[in-house]
């Protein structure tokens, strides 16, 4: 495997980690936005509590992806940043507002406006960001992002828009699955389990339907990638579909730990299916991985630094997840 491919693999893994971890954090914000009825406040509290210790660490995966891309594929990064400036700017605004609103609500004691205000900002920003990131990812497949495409080019096809919607639904699905389990670990929140179970089932069904709509759009709006998709990605599609249906089945049976695994696998399979079909283009028709890569010596240094860094960071990450899972996970 060449250094270029290895770095691509690292970036895809980091993207998967971001989708599974931070994705669920965004999805939780979507449920915050949609929370209605007399239990809404307690749902919001459960969500806030689940995010507390982990959202910042989860968020660093995105920074890692950005940094790895501009370090490893600098010319493509320049081009992609220019081509995707509008969706990325919106995603960025969403990231900033979500994080700020979260801490302002948690620590502000109302000093800077009512908690309900920051709650709203948090929820809306959490929903906008995955949409914009979904649009951005899909736009790279369409071939419409080029050195001199206009700012609206990423929004210029049904495929990218529906991909954005798909991203929001998937994050909501992940969040609901995770929250089923979280709610069940404490007697105080146990009554929320059925609420999130219903949400998880609804989101899974919706995700399935939207992905069916997405396939023809892929062939229509992103022909190059669609062609490679037929050649390479069928196994991933099968895996994603199996895990999608499997998730619905195990959620139905109230096996929430297993549901986490199937849901995560389904999301990873979708991501890999896209990545396989995208390869070797970073932005279809405008930048391939090899042509835009930094010098070999720099790539090697990056990979060595990453290998070293991951051996330190991954155990720490698992420690974090371990300390904050388990039965004493009680909102204070």
């Amino acid at each position, binding site marked *: 495997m060449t250094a270029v491919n290895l770095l691509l693999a690292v970036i895809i893994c980091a993207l998967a980690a971001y989708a599974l971890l931070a994705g669920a954090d965004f999805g939780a914000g979507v449920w915050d936005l949609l929370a209605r009825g007399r239990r809404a406040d307690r749902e919001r509290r459960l969500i806030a509590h689940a995010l507390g*210790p982990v959202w910042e660490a989860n968020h660093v995966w995105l920074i890692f992806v950005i940094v790895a891309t501009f370090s490893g594929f600098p010319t493509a990064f320049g081009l992609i940043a220019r081509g995707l400036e509008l969706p990325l700017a919106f995603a960025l605004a969403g990231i900033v507002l979500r994080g700020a609103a979260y801490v302002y609500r948690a620590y502000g004691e109302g000093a800077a406006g009512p908690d309900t205000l920051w709650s709203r900002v948090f929820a809306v920003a959490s929903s906008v960001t995955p949409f914009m990131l979904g649009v951005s990812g899909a736009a790279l497949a369409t071939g419409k992002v080029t050195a001199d495409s206009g700012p609206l080019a990423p929004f210029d096809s049904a495929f990218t828009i529906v991909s954005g919607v798909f991203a929001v639904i998937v994050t909501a699905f992940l969040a609901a699955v995770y929250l089923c389990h979280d709610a069940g670990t404490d007697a105080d929140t146990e009554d929320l389990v059925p609420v999130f179970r219903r949400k998880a089932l609804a989101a899974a069904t919706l995700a399935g339907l939207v992905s069916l709509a997405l396939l023809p759009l892929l062939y229509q709006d992103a022909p190059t990638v669609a062609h490679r998709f037929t050649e390479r990605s069928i196994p991933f599609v099968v895996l994603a579909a199996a895990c999608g249906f499997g998730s619905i089945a195990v959620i139905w049976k109230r096996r929430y730990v297993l549901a986490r695994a199937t849901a995560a696998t389904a999301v990873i399979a979708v991501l890999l299916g896209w990545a396989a079909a995208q390869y070797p283009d970073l932005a279809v028709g405008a930048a391939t991985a090899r042509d835009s890569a930094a010098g070999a010596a720099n790539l090697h240094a990056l990979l060595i630094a990453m290998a070293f*860094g991951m051996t330190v960071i991954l155990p*720490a990450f698992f*420690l*974090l997840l371990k300390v904050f899972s388990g039965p004493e996970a009680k909102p204070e």
Partner: protein
Amino acid sequence: MLGSTLTDARIQTGFSLAFHIVFAVFGVGLPWLLIVTEGRWLKTGDAVWLALTRKWARVMAVLFAIGAVSGTVLSFEFGLLWPAFMARYGGVLGLPFTLEAFAFFAEAIFIGLYLYGWKRLSPRAHWLTLWPIAISGTLSTLFIVTANAWMNVPTGIKEVNGKVVSAEPLAPLTGPGALPESLHMLLAAIMCTGGVVAAVYAVGMLRGRRDAYHRRGFRVGLVTVLAAAPVQLVVGDLAARVVEKYQPAKLAAMEALPHTRDHAPLTLGGIYDPDTGKTRFGIELPDGLSLLTGFRTDKTIRGLDILPAKEQPATPVVHLAFDTMVGAGMAILALAALLAVVALWRRRKGVRPLIPLAKPWLIAGALTGPAAMAAMLAGWEVTEAGRQPWIVYGRMTVREAATTSGGIAWSLVATVLVYLGLAAALVLILRRLATGAPPSSAAGSDGPPPQDPDEDGATEPRHTERPELEGAAR
């Protein structure tokens, strides 16, 4: 809409970097202070140390999150605003930025453990989680500033026709500017944190809240900023020598020196007039600059005229910013010297506390916070504006680097509005945190406002009460 795309991109970069750095410095400095206060609490069981720890942990939580989101903006902005810069040099700067990302990982992971782990970790393990936060915050500063130092003194690359053909991966970390610049920033972060902490408690005492909690908070902050000041002078001097050697035009702008000459004077303060080459209202010390840089009066110093007028940096701004920084640094240093003498004298006489708390001293202590912050921002203005018109010194101009997109004015307006809104809300929250009662060991963060731990009665051991304060994890 506002200016040219280039101007807008510059304003947006400067604005968002300054915003980020003002909050990020606390992410670097506070963990070190917390190691001290929480460590003291573990050792003595003194509730005042715990109250300080708990208050600062909350402040750190808010500032860390704002630092994290505003830092994310920066990493996108480099691509959005300076795509040609990233396209050409992203690979060269890859190593420091990648190492930086890992430092962020470590910081964010352990800050989660620290802030939410009061209940789940043993007191000792909880204290230990501060170390990775502090160390990785420090490392992240060092890494990021080496990237900036490389932009100032780009070494170790070969370019043909504007394309990097080979780059030493380690060049940014080993360049001549890397060590002095990054150490200088690290000390600046520590000084800013210490100074602002001192300022908050000094103001509290000036308002009449002279309890042990305020006295001790003041002392920890003040000792931090004052102890770092002399080291900062030495490191700043090293940084200036690197500038003199590798960026002569920047040094000339810093010192407002229009013409290359020996017996160069040192000009303190004043407004430089680029048309006449004279500095109005400045104080001129004959031979001063030659002496400082070469230790002899006839050392030749290169002036602005080594470059044609349109390639010179914006001298009036750079000179003023430089003197602001050095002036503030010297003022803090003077306070440090004065207080050291007074403290020694009081120790000989057996007077306690060693640091006097009379009104003038409190006012002076309170001013170290704004002074350190002003010095830090002014220092960045020197570094960045003094490098103009280059983004990478001698290799790429900001004009070449800037985006050509038409929408930048909008993004500038949006950035400024969002940031001002967030900053205003943040100020309100921090003010509440600063003026709110100290979290006492008996009350949770959501509990009723506790009374001040009074005078020094608070020195009795409180370890036995730990279970009660566990409700206050945050």
